[in-house]
């Protein structure tokens, strides 16, 4: 065993050297018209060697290290723990959730503008992830093109406001419904597909939408995007310094307070918060309805689900449609928040990140998904100083998560313990 580990560790260290030395150890420098290779300074080379040594040592003692980590109870879910009684747990959970929402309602008034803006983005991701959670987590349909529905929502609002002058509140349901319609349309061709094949088709669909937006320049403005998307209003009150539209009043004049740019940011945040809570509650309701169980049944075993008289078509389409609906919601909020959208906001990476949130949070678990959305959105912002290594850190975090908690941060719970009377 020890000899085997030693060999393996040596091999890993060698690979580390082989990969990192040519990449980091040489620099290309332009001298006049020639490019010459210059060796890196000693500290870089020492760093590379140190990295190789670290890899070697880790691999050599991997079993011991990973064993230790596995022993940490709090990290390892699925280890036998005394579960709390179901009703008590549910009570605590609902209190905590209510508390968090109330807290979230008030904290923007004490925070900086940047923080509130970031929080709005987090809420948009929460909406997206909750929606995708229906498709991937509950119905088990791997959707890699989810961002397309997000784009449909955003572009619906942008185009409606640009061509027809439609306001945010009118565009919100239209955007969501149109996205849902797209979900339905995509649902039909992929009904018979499963797993990898489904993933490829949805991936293609996501790209089709993005490329369409990019090239239909007469309608969407192509890569230039659409700007000047209006902010939401509060019962006809605008948040700008001056009123843009006839008949509207401005928020600060109505209430007789000084104009502040923060009002708009906070208002947007509150809208996003309300919509995110709405999304969570609606989907929670769905999960407890028969349709929610049908999604799960289809995920667990398609043949068995069909043998019970469930229609594969209806169940899959409902999951796709409802997931897409909430992506449209998020898209409308996003367009309003940014004031400008272009196809660049709806690339595959977005789909991947939303999927990562769902997987990290724990498929099917709402609280887990919310936590993961917060983590995935905020961590890269905190790590701004190492901005070059952001994706690297992100990737490393994913790998570590999958090693320690493959079932996600907070796996979907299905424990139900009733204390039985001792006889």
């Amino acid at each position: 065993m020890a000899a085997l580990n030693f060999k393996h560790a040596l091999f890993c260290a060698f690979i580390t050297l082989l990969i990192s030395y040519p990449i980091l150890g040489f620099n290309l420098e332009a001298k006049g018209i020639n490019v010459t290779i210059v060796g890196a300074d000693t500290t870089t080379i020492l760093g590379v060697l140190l990295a190789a040594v670290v890899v070697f040592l880790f691999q050599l003692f991997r079993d011991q290290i990973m064993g230790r980590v596995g022993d940490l109870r709090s990290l390892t879910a699925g280890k036998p723990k005394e579960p709390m009684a179901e009703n008590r747990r549910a009570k605590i959970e609902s209190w905590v959730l209510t508390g968090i929402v109330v807290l979230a309602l008030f904290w923007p008034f004490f925070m900086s503008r940047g923080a509130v803006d970031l929080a709005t983005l987090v809420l948009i991701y929460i909406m997206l992830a909750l929606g995708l959670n229906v498709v991937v987590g509950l119905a088990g349909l791997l959707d890699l093109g989810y961002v397309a529905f997000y784009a449909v929502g955003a572009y619906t609002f942008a185009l409606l406001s640009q061509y027809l002058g439609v306001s945010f509140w009118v565009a919100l349901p239209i955007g969501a419904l149109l996205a849902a319609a797209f979900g339905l349309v995509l649902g039909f061709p992929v009904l018979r597909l499963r797993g990898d094949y489904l993933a490829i088709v949805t991936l293609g669909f996501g790209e089709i939408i993005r490329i369409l937006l990019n090239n239909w320049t007469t309608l969407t403005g192509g890569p230039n995007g659409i700007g000047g998307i209006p902010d939401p209003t509060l019962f006809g009150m605008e948040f700008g310094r001056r009123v843009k539209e006839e008949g509207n009043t401005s928020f600060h004049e109505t209430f007789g307070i000084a104009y502040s740019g923060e009002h708009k940011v906070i208002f947007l945040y509150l809208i996003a918060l309300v919509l995110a809570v709405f999304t969570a509650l609606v989907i929670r309701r769905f999960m407890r309805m028969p349709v929610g169980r049908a999604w799960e049944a289809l995920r667990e075993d398609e043949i068995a689900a069909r043998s019970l008289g469930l229609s594969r078509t209806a169940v899959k389409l409902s999951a796709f449609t409802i997931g897409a609906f909430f992506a449209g919601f998020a898209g409308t909020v996003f367009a309003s928040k940014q004031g400008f959208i272009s196809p660049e906001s709806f690339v595959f990476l977005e789909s991947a990140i939303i999927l990562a949130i769902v997987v990290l949070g724990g498929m099917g678990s709402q609280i887990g998904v919310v936590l993961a959305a917060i983590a995935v959105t905020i961590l890269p912002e905190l790590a701004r100083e190492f901005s070059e290594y952001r994706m690297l850190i992100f990737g490393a975090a994913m790998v570590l998560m999958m090693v320690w908690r493959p079932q996600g941060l907070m796996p979907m719970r299905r424990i139900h313990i009733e204390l039985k009377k001792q006889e």
Partner: protein
Amino acid sequence: MLVLENVHTHYGKIEALHGVSVEVKKGEIVSLIGANGAGKTTLLMTVCGNPRASSGRVILNGRDITRDPTANIMRSGIAIVPEGRRIFSGLTVEENLHMGGFFNTKAEIRKSQDHAYELFPRLKEREHQRAGTMSGGEQQMLAIGRALMSKPNMIILDEPSLGLAPLVIKQIFEIIGHLRDEGITVFLVEQNAHQALNLADRGYVLETGKIRLQDTGKNLLANPEVQNAYLGG
């Protein structure tokens, strides 16, 4: 009750059933036995409309269901316990049962659930356990219980004894007999020919996509051909 008339079924270009005719009358237990690859499961799947019969007719309660969508067939008083049980392993026992009564009202579900627990007291004990963590026998009980949740008047069982201990098989067959006493028609597909024929009112022997023999269960058990081929001499 269930009649198959000269049914041919294809997988792509390959014909798996070459004109099979089977009849299951109300209140009977009918067993279908046959070796691996004889087409037993194909026959059942054809009844469910997946794959569809390419010619011939499937008639349930006097109605031609050959071209009906699977979901509709499965909602018309017929329930199937699929081969290999196929319970929803991530859901609890209770949730599995509720899935079986998906199209019924809550009151009906509660009633059939109590009935399932009465038939299989073991399931009651495991009510809130994830179904995948149970033993094979318990899972088979759950699969039968789940099929009964829709209050079918006919139940189709595909190899209920697959991979189970002899003692458990005996229990399962007792339950099947009990179902008939409750007035449920049973169509049983088995490799375990001895037990299946012992229990059955009538039996069919399927061989490479054709019905080879049909008779009462007792007569088939005594038939030297059947004894040679399926009962180990």
